[in-house]
């Protein structure tokens, strides 16, 4: 499909673009970007009043396949991604079996190729079976196509294993994505060790359970070098440690989730299991420190840690319900409404956090819409308000703490490789109302 996007405002920090743009797309790639492409003959999509961002890459999701298809599949997770404006996701290896062998990597990639509307980049298990005792066959997994390694979801307590894994990753020039948690400090806990958790009489997870492991990983990184990425930071102590490391010129990147940016432990009131996440939602001071760190560039990436669960599992009560919240279908509107619209983050900074940095860290195409780049992009409506309605999610998981929130910045078009996968909330192959013919896009228009 060839088409010309007109009237929209493009924010593309990698290209140094920050204003009105016309974008010509040809054979799945960006053919030209200019303030005016008058002489071009191509079907035109009028995006007046809309914002175009280089395709967001959510570098931290759980797609549950194989082994957890009741919670999510690669197909439904990718549908949720494009519904939420993401053109790519990196999926964590804590599936059943774990992504720790060539066979499982190849299975995930095959399922992605067959069923996914977004790019799906598997992350390989950092240790065999995610058991934390010996490093996985990292080179083999890299050969098969993983884009990084992680023990996400299962704390890696053995610092010797962590050191060797980081050393081995050097050989492959791939990121090690650290889920920083000292399981001796977090053991049995379900909520932050703060006012609300204690008041509700729930076992707690102190900030130190994260921060001591962040400190460990930073010290190892200083010795080893390579690419360290700290997943889902949740507390101000971690932010301070990352600042310290950056001042020492330790190479690293760090990530924060929308729920840690926009919620505190208060969300647990009423024993609300949709706010039970790991690491837990922490205090207002922690939340403020995370927002500031993102603005200051101490934290570079926003990723959702999209963690779908079945309704019945989340109804088990706070003690027994599994950790995790879905995030793919709320992240962009949340970030737009609560950071960009409030002037806490510029649109360019937002794109850095959700597109450019993830692409660079994972070393995958995209993150920009310069000539020759894949035509992966999202168009959002920066003005119109909508209410988050979990029942309408394409994800199988409806477990969001943001149900009922009124937000702007709703994605209205998600394009992957030049192909429109989501059109005004309708997802190709998943929604009966999705236009059957391309010409409908141009006839109908977006406004």
């Amino acid at each position, binding site marked *: 499909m060839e088409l010309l996007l007109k009237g929209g405002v493009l924010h593309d920090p990698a290209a140094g673009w920050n204003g009105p743009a016309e974008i010509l797309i040809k054979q799945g790639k960006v053919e030209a970007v200019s303030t005016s492409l008058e002489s071009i003959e191509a079907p035109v999509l009028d995006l007046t009043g809309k914002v175009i961002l280089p395709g967001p890459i959510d570098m931290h999701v759980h797609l549950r396949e194989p082994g957890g298809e009741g919670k999510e599949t690669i197909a439904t997770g990718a549908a949720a991604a494009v519904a939420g404006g993401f053109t790519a996701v990196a999926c964590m290896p804590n599936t059943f079996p774990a992504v720790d062998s060539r066979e499982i990597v190849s299975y995930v990639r095959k399922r992605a190729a067959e069923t996914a509307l977004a790019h799906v980049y598997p992350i390989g298990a950092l240790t065999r079976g995610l058991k934390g005792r010996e490093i996985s066959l990292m080179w083999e997994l890299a050969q098969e196509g993983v884009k990084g390694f992680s023990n996400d979801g299962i704390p890696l307590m053995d610092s010797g294993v962590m050191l060797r894994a980081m050393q081995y990753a050097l050989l492959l020039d791939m990121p090690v994505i650290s889920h920083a948690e000292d399981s001796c400090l977090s053991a049995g806990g379900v909520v932050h*060790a*703060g*006012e609300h*958790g*204690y*008041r*509700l*009489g*729930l076992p*707690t997870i102190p900030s130190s359970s994260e921060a001591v492991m962040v400190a460990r990983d930073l010290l190892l990184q200083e010795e080893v070098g390579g690419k360290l990425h700290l997943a889902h930071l949740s507390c101000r102590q971690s932010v301070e440690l990352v600042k310290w490391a950056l001042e020492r010129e330790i190479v690293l990147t760090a990530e924060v989730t929308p729920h840690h940016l926009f919620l505190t432990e208060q969300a647990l009131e*009423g*024993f609300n299991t949709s706010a039970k996440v790991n690491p837990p939602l922490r205090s207002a001071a922690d939340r403020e420190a995370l927002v500031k760190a993102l603005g200051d560039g101490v934290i570079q990436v926003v990723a959702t840690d999209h963690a779908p669960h079945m309704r*019945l599992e989340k*109804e*088990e*009560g*706070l*003690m*027994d319900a599994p950790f995790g919240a879905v995030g793919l279908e709320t992240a962009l509107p949340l970030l737009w409404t609560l950071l960009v619209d409030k002037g806490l983050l510029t649109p360019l900074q937002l794109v850095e956090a959700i597109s450019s940095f993830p692409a660079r860290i994972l070393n995958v195409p995209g993150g920009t819409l310069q000539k020759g780049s894949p035509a992966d992009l999202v168009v959002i409506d920066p003005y119109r308000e909508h209410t988050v309605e979990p029942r309408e999610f394409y994800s199988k998981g409806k477990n969001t703490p943001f149900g009922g929130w009124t937000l702007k910045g709703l994605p209205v078009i998600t394009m992957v490789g030049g192909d429109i996968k989501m059109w005004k909330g309708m997802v190709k192959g998943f929604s009966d109302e999705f236009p059957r013919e391309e010409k409908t896009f141009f006839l109908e228009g977006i406004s």
Partner: protein
Amino acid sequence: MLPKDLLSLEDLHKEDMEEILARARFFKEREGKGDHSSLKGKNIVISFWEPSTRTRVSFELAARKLGARVIDYVPDAGSEAKDESIEDTIKTLTALGADALVFRYKLPGLLGKISTRVEMPLISGGEGCYQHPTQALLDLFTLQEERLSLRGLKVVMVGDILHSRVARSHFYALPAFGAELILVAPPVLLPLELVPPGAEYTFNLETALSRGDVIYLLRVQQERQGKGLLPSLSEYASLFGLNEKRLSLLKKEAVIMHPGPVNQGIEVSPGAISYLEAYQPDKLLLQKQVQNGVYIRMAVLDLLLGGRG
């Protein structure tokens, strides 16, 4: 107007608590002067999923004194039911015509969830480490009998604050009536985030004892030792137990309370108990607490069910 359920004292205003206390006083004054059968024909289900004698029996007596029928629903021993099946059970009980449910459960949160789904009043008989509202109410009642006003009363609460639902209920009860809390526990059982605004805390029992008008001893669960929270119970007793020597620190008018059952030799030494029983029996309010519990529970049942036809 009282809320539909009694799950947490946080949900009650001071006036609500006063209403319950006044009703309990009414029942206590009428004791032995004929029946008060305001709940005649009502079915009250008592379902305790955690071991309990006094609270369960206290509720049962309260319900019977008001003329209600009591259905004691005890789940199969050792059954590890999931929340979902408990919810089903409760729906079944509703369908069978239960008019109220008194419930005790080891984990917090389930009652609040159920309360939105059934119309009958739910009354907590103790919920995890979260709340034990009737205990705090009966303590208020007992203290009001002893003292005319609770304003300015210093209550030294000693023990496993971290795991205590009684303490958590008192955080909303005592301060509402003007009493001041001084919390005493080893640091591992007293996270500072838990200390309510306006309360004091200390790790030194002896300095606190000399200031207390009320010494409220909390039960220390034996199993805390196994979890490595306390090196040994005897060390706890040495540092935080009330013993004969420490009795001399108490104010002359100070009284001693405990939600029961007492672990003799841990919270309080057998010697201290014998001494108090022999020489200062008025200091010990434990029996009064137990007796008053029945009137408080009558008041709660009467007010929550009575107003609803």
